[in-house]
């Protein structure tokens, strides 16, 4: 049924990275997330699926406190990263976001050169002691994002001059260069063609060796191909969370089944 047989994949790691308990998110008076409990494991790809407006992106943005930038947004409940509450007053969201990287739906390279785009994170976090180290980080990140071959001769040209798929891989390289522990991806392939999508998916699978990856996607095939765990959101509720193979072959909740078979959404 799908490109890659999902049943053969197993979750090898059981360390919990993020633990969310009874998370509610409000935009003004509207409740966008209605009490979500979820454990996100290390070295695992977790996919969030669900119809538009179901709150999956909102929940993703809670994990690195990007919702802080929206004035009317309010989060209750607890989310812990390796046991520490990320909404604690003593937590600096800037530090948190360095540990929890994010790739957005639309490629958003900075108006700088390709090199400076990738070097931005390491520079602001002081990850490189000298130019040689920075060069190394940039090269490594671009290689990880499968962009090195295309970009190595034009590192000092503007990143905005790349094609859409290359820009998105540049944004992934930029996120990887900061050496985060978790990588959040908000529909990273929605603006890409099938070839670029395949490259990014391959990349996500490789990133799993080092990071915990959380991906929001509208494509159920993509969720099935890249993830080991899947969470199905519907109208602000986390309806079902489990092994990807189980969700796609044997969903427990009738709503999940309807969505997967294309009856709601």
């Amino acid at each position, binding site marked *: 049924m799908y490109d890659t047989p999902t049943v053969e994949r197993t979750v090898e790691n059981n360390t919990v990275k993020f633990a969310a308990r009874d998370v509610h998110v409000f935009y003004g008076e509207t409740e966008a997330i209605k009490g979500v409990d979820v454990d996100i494991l290390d070295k695992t790809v977790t996919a969030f699926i669900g119809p538009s407006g179901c709150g999956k992106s909102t929940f993703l943005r809670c994990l*690195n406190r990007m919702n802080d930038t929206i004035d009317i947004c309010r989060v209750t409940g607890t989310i812990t990263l390796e046991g520490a509450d990320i909404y604690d007053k003593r937590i600096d969201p800037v530090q948190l*976001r360095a540990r929890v*990287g994010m790739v*957005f739906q639309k490629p*958003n390279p*900075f*108006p700088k050169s390709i090199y400076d785009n990738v070097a931005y994170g390491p520079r*602001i*976090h002081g990850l490189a002691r000298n130019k040689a180290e920075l060069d190394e980080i940039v090269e490594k990140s671009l290689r990880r994002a499968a962009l090195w071959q295309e970009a190595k001769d034009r590192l000092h040209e503007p990143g905005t001059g790349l094609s859409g798929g290359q820009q998105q891989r540049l944004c992934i390289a930029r*996120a990887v260069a900061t050496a985060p522990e978790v990588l959040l991806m908000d529909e990273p392939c929605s603006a890409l063609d099938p070839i670029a999508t395949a490259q990014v998916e391959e990349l996500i699978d490789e990133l799993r060796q080092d990071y915990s990856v959380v991906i929001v996607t509208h494509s159920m095939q993509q969720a099935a191909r890249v993830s080991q765990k899947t969470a199905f959101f519907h109208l602000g509720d986390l309806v079902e969370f489990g092994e990807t193979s189980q969700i796609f072959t044997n969903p427990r909740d009738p709503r999940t089944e309807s969505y997967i078979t294309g009856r709601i959404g």
Partner: protein
Amino acid sequence: MTSAAFLCLFALAILGYVWNRQAATAIRAGGARLHSLEGFHGFYALLTVLVPVLLVMLLWLVLQGQVVDSLLRSGIAGHLEGRSAGEVQLILAEIKSISRGMVFGTPEPWKIDAAERYLALTARAQTLLLVVVVVLSLVLVVLGRSKVSAEFRARHGVERIVSGLMIACSVVAIVVTLGIVASLLFETLRFFERVPVTEFLFGTNWEPQIPLREDQVAAEGAFGWIPVMLGTLVITVIALVVAVPVGLMTAIYLNEFAPRKFRAVAKPFLEILAGVPTVVYGFFAILVVAPAMRAFAASLGVDVSPNIALAAGSVMGIMLIPFISSFADDALSAVPQSLRDGALGLGATRAEMMLDVLFPAAIPGIVGGVLLAVSRAIGETMIVVMAAGLIAKMTINPLDSVTTVTVQIVTLLIGDTSFDNPKTLAAFALGMMLFVLTLMINVLALRIVRKYREAYD
């Protein structure tokens, strides 16, 4: 009479609209498929009547005066013989004022006759105009009606006429610009006939007070614009030193850091600042800022001039703050949210995001705003007329009194003037230089904006 002609024209144009529209509706009701909607048939008639007849009326009204004048003059040719052009003008003016019922003294009988003839001529011209307008409009209405058919492309016709009107409107701006340049240029050339170009451009002495009449006692006169330009430069630099940092900081704070409530209060205040008339800024400069600066300098034991350049410059800077801050605010707001998210998502602080990402992306808008502010500072007149000095000095000392190009233009053109005198003509030469200067700055601004836009989009 003229208003009657206008009324007739509009009535006939509307009649054409209704008539054509109804004709088109009738064709459609008959089962035919129209090329253009009924409305376009109507507008076609409206425009084909309105545009040409209005043009004719405009030409008529422009030419009517001259034609009537020449007819009037030929009627009294005997009385005008041997008189100079100026005298003829005076007599014609007198006749016209008699015709309006304003009689001074006892005019000769032939003048009263001429006045009556003038009235009759004007009345006849007006009647003729009305007739021409009505006939022409009727012909055009009928012509337009005869064109209505299912295949007639009324929409294309309307589009052509409207695009022609748009071209005409945009040509107005070009023509006016050329006219301004030409009027400046001719007077400037006349100035350079009397004063050598090299003396004007490179002279370091500006004393334009030369005698207007033979019997006046005044200085020899010197027309070197360098000290005047230096004054403008000093004031502009002071204004920018005040306005650019304050304006940019304001924009950055309001755009990114200010709480919503503060923004809601600060924005209207900036708009008020932008709306203050420059005369009021001038008061502020001479009544508040300059005395305060003098008092402060006196307390330090420094002797400064009463018309201190720093006062005029800094008040001009205050005037430019809202200008720069609103440009920078727009430029920063135009940076897409995705770039902000991208930077924050990498763990950048808001300050880092602002400096590394938003600011470079907003540079074209900001530079454009700053250069426009420079143009305004150079051309600003009222504040400096009130607060800067009148004497041109070769100095760049902001504590001294300086004068500016605009101040000199104003002082040269007020009071007794005669337009064949280098003193008056010098104002045009200064205006020309000002024009060239701001033009160059605007071109530079456009170039910078374009260059950076290419790199960042």
